[in-house]
């Protein structure tokens, strides 16, 4: 065999390898790809949302390509850096998306038709600090609260609590009965204790937006009583959690509840659609209890998800068409009902059909709304405040750190990089 | 025309010189054996002839044509390797016919040559077997067959018998000798075993430390070794060397006497000593005798009735005593007694 023949052989091998992959390259006239971490919603996008859009826009094909939530940021950033990300980017709230906008990855969307459907508050999470530029179309907010097993409550003759003492009395009764684990919460993954725990019950103590903004402006510290108290309450949850809660993962908590073994699930409204499918018992919900009867109640009503336009999209016009549709009331109705628990951020109220979702939404009228305290500005530096809340929230429930110690650690971490403008 | 001509071949690996200026002519039809201790460069020399290695300087001519820079396959050689080097995944027939196929010979011609070689080496029943299913001797015959089918101008053998047991070695030796007679081709054969060299060669080339010590017919090397090295290397048991006064008296630096040329002398022995050890082979007896000139080996035909520790006298005819100068080179026949 001569050298040329040999080289030819090698080239042929490479060619075969190339063809093997090239056959798989997608190539269609105008296809929009959506990057998202909501892989739970894949079926809903494919079966309900996208067909509705394509019906009115026959020239555009939309593909929803979600990544697992934990890998979303890393994968998206790599793809954006290399210019291979999809046309439409699902936006995390606040800094993660703000950073993308500042790096020029996302296009400003101020002039987009339908942006007027959103109040400035609804746009906060995807607007620059000076409030001038919005770069993602808000899609949904999620509300924290507690979901309970109605059958279990009926069997034990229990009623949803309104105040914190009632809540603990309730937990004590469930525990005494012994049939059910009172609270389905695990400390292993951290984000459960931070989101379902602290950020769920906290606003009642630090008075929602008032407390959150005071923290940002440096007028309050995490070591102040109103910020330490939620930790102290969380620590009291400990006896009411399931066996081995330290190793209980998020999925474990969900299973514990949906299989009917736990009575109460500290929740986010996004759980509704999943629980509807899996639970074989009636579901109820109550808002975070207040400290004493008659107090104003506060809920975490958190802008969670939005959609932006990749600056490198080859089809900006079509992508804008899609975003305009997302900003429309038609989309709001479709999305909020396809995914009960994801509440529209548009001004015009959306008719909801799911009773549990309606119940969550009704708290907007009776309680004061706030967003999660760590999301705006305060998680910009190192160490990261949100990550610290995950770790310390679990530490407090596990008994590793006393509430005051945990709060001191958080404040120290924050102080090391955050200098509030005074 | 010379079948093989080596002109001033040198070979260096880095700074070590393995071959220093080898000049040699091999006549058509000769069976030439390169012999020498391990590391003397004989295998390297053979590989240079084969084209498997490039000489640092000098020229190789095969059948009158320059072989320098010619790849092995184009040199018209056939080679038999020490480890047989049969292709393990090919059967015997394919092993033997590979080179012919490479040369593009017609199928019928390949078949004819294969059949002829198989006939000559009695490989007929083995043709479809894989090398792993053959005995050592059979593998060796296949390796030889692979060289034969090419009808080379020059056969090269690289220690082909060293992996065989003693009995098989003798048989194969005879087969190779027969083969040479039957084919009449020129053969170059490398071995470290002087018996193989003596029994097979038309001409022996003794190599040591990268240089040719002597070239000649086996019997010439035996009777008239050109230097101490050749004298010591050829012949078994080894030639006795005697230095000191004995040698000086004979006008030499060293005397050399083959064991079979020493005779037991009851009267006026030239050397006297005691028998330290005796080996009784039946056909011969080897005596190891401690004398004032050092230990001498004596070969006595037939059975010698000698007891260990017995005093003994030894003599040798002057005509059979080899004399070497202080550089180890052979001196002419001694005139003094």
């Amino acid at each position, binding site marked *: 065999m001569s050298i040329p023949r040999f080289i030819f052989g090698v080239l042929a091998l490479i060619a075969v390898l190339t063809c093997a992959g090239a056959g798989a390259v997608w190539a269609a006239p105008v296809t929009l790809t959506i990057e998202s971490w909501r892989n739970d919603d894949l079926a809903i996008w494919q079966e309900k949302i996208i067909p509705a859009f394509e019906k009115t826009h026959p020239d555009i094909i939309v593909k929803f390509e979600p990544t697992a939530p934990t890998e979303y940021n890393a994968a998206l950033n790599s793809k954006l850096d290399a210019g291979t990300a999809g046309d439409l980017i699902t936006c995390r709230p606040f800094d993660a998306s703000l950073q993308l906008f500042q790096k020029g990855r996302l296009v400003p969307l101020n002039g987009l038709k339908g942006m007027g459907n959103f109040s400035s508050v609804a746009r906060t999470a995807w607007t620059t600090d000076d409030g001038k530029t919005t770069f993602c179309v808000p899609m949904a907010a999620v509300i924290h609260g507690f979901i309970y097993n109605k059958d279990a409550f009926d069997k034990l003759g229990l009623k949803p609590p309104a105040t914190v003492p009632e809540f603990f009395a309730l937990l004590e009764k469930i525990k005494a009965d012994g049939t059910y684990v009172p609270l389905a919460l695990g400390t292993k993954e951290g984000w459960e204790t931070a989101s379902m725990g602290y950020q769920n019950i906290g606003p009642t103590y630090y008075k929602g937006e008032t407390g959150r903004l005071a923290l940002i402006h440096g007028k309050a510290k995490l070591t102040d009583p109103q910020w330490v108290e939620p930790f102290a309450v969380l620590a009291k949850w400990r006896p009411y959690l399931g066996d081995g809660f330290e190793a209980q993962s998020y999925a474990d908590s969900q299973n514990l509840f949906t299989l009917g073994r736990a009575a109460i699930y500290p929740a986010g409204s996004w759980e509704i659609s999943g629980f509807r499918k899996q639970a074989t018992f009636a579901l109820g919900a109550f808002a975070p209890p207040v400290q004493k009867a008659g107090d104003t109640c506060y809920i975490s009503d958190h802008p969670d998800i939005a959609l932006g336009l990749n600056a490198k999209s080859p089809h900006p016009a079509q992508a804008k068409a899609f975003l305009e549709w997302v900003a429309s009331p038609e989309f709001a109705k479709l999305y909020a009902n396809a995914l009960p628990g994801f509440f529209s951020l548009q001004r015009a109220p959306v008719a909801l059909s799911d009773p549990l979702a309606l119940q969550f939404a009704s708290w907007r009228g009776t309680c004061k709304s706030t967003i999660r305290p760590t999301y705006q500005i305060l998680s910009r530096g190192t160490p990261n405040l949100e990550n610290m809340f995950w770790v310390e929230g679990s530490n407090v429930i596990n008994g590793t750190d006393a509430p005051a110690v945990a709060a001191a650690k958080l404040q120290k971490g924050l102080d090391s990089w955050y200098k509030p403008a005074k | 025309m010379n079948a093989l001509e080596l002109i001033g071949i040198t070979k260096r690996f880095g700074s070590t010189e393995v071959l220093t200026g080898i000049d040699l002519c091999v006549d058509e039809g000769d069976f030439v054996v390169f012999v020498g201790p391990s590391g003397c460069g004989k295998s390297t020399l053979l590989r240079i002839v084969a084209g498997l290695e490039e000489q640092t300087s000098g020229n190789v001519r095969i059948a009158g044509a320059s072989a320098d820079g010619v790849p092995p396959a184009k040199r018209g050689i056939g080679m038999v*390797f020490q480890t047989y080097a049969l292709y393990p995944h090919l059967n015997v027939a394919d092993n033997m016919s590979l080179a012919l196929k490479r040369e593009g010979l017609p199928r019928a011609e390949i078949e004819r040559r294969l059949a002829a070689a198989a006939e000559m080496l009695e490989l007929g029943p083995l043709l479809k077997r894989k090398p792993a299913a053959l005995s050592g001797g059979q593998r060796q015959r296949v390796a030889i067959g692979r060289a034969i089918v090419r009808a080379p101008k020059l056969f090269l053998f690289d220690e082909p018998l060293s992996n065989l047991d003693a009995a098989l070695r003798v048989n194969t030796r005879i087969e190779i000798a027969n083969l040479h007679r039957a084919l009449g081709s020129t053969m170059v054969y490398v071995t470290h075993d002087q018996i193989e060299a003596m029994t097979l060669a038309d001409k022996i080339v003794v190599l040591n430390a990268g240089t040719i010590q002597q070239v000649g017919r086996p019997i010439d090397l035996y009777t008239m070794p050109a230097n101490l090295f050749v004298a010591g290397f050829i012949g078994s048991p080894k030639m006795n060397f005697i230095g000191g006064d004995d040698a000086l008296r004979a006008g030499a630096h060293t005397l050399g006497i083959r064991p079979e040329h020493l005779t037991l002398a009851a009267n006026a022995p030239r050397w006297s000593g005691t028998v330290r050890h005796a080996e009784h082979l039946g056909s011969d007896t080897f005596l190891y005798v401690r004398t004032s000139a050092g230990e001498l080996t004596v070969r006595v035909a037939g059975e010698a009735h000698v007891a260990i520790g017995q005093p003994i006298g030894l003599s040798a005819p002057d005509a059979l005593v080899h004399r070497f100068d202080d550089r180890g080179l052979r001196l002419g026949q001694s005139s003094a007694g």
Partner: protein
Amino acid sequence: MLAAHAVLIAYTAVAVLPVLFIVMNSFKSRRAIFLAPLALPGPGSFDLVGYTTVLKTGAFGSYFANSLIVTLASLAGIIAFGSMAAFALAEYRFRLNTLTALYLMLGIMIPIRLGTVGILELMVAGHLVNTLVALILVYVASGLPVAVFVLTEFMRTISDDLKNAGRVDGLSEYEIYFWLVLPLVRPAIATVAVFTMIPIWNDLWFPLILAPGEATKTITLGAQQFIGQYVTDWNAVLAALSLGIFPVVGLYLIFSKNLIRGITSGAVK
């Protein structure tokens, strides 16, 4: 000997039971998995719902084909290019030999994931994103160091006489490599194949970054997203995981015939 068997059986149980356990529960209903995890699937608990969910939801057939193409093509590339380089390093003496060998083995020490951004940029420049070729190139590059290392050691053990016999018979250097040496290091190739196959088949990261498209998704990525999607649907998760076990075990069994012979006669001695 009895004691030896006792120990081996005990350890085999430790090794295999957790795996069997996953497979076993994948055939049970969700309630049965949770309430009696140790029970064998029986008439009351046997349920194929996990498998039907998996097979109906994801394009698992296409994921599987992608994984197989990527794994086999990468192995082919690693073995072809790795053995060529190993042959050059083992067979020829040239000035940069040692340096080249060290250079090629440097990669054993750094996780290739660190080069993600650079790799992605490279693939973008080559218009290879969302193609299986991108994955194959990455896996070939990351598999080469070990392959070169192992195969070089093996190739040094091949008899010089054999290669010289080939040269005398008129084989070119390429043919000696391809036709004489390659078949003889087959055990080593099996070894390299098994040890490089595992991380390729199981990789999550590069499929996610380089080829997340539906058409190019691999089965590991598909299963992982499936887990994200049905994080509480244990039937489906266990079924997806069980399905993921078989192909890699099958590939192992194919190569393993040569494996022990391979590690025995080469690099690790």
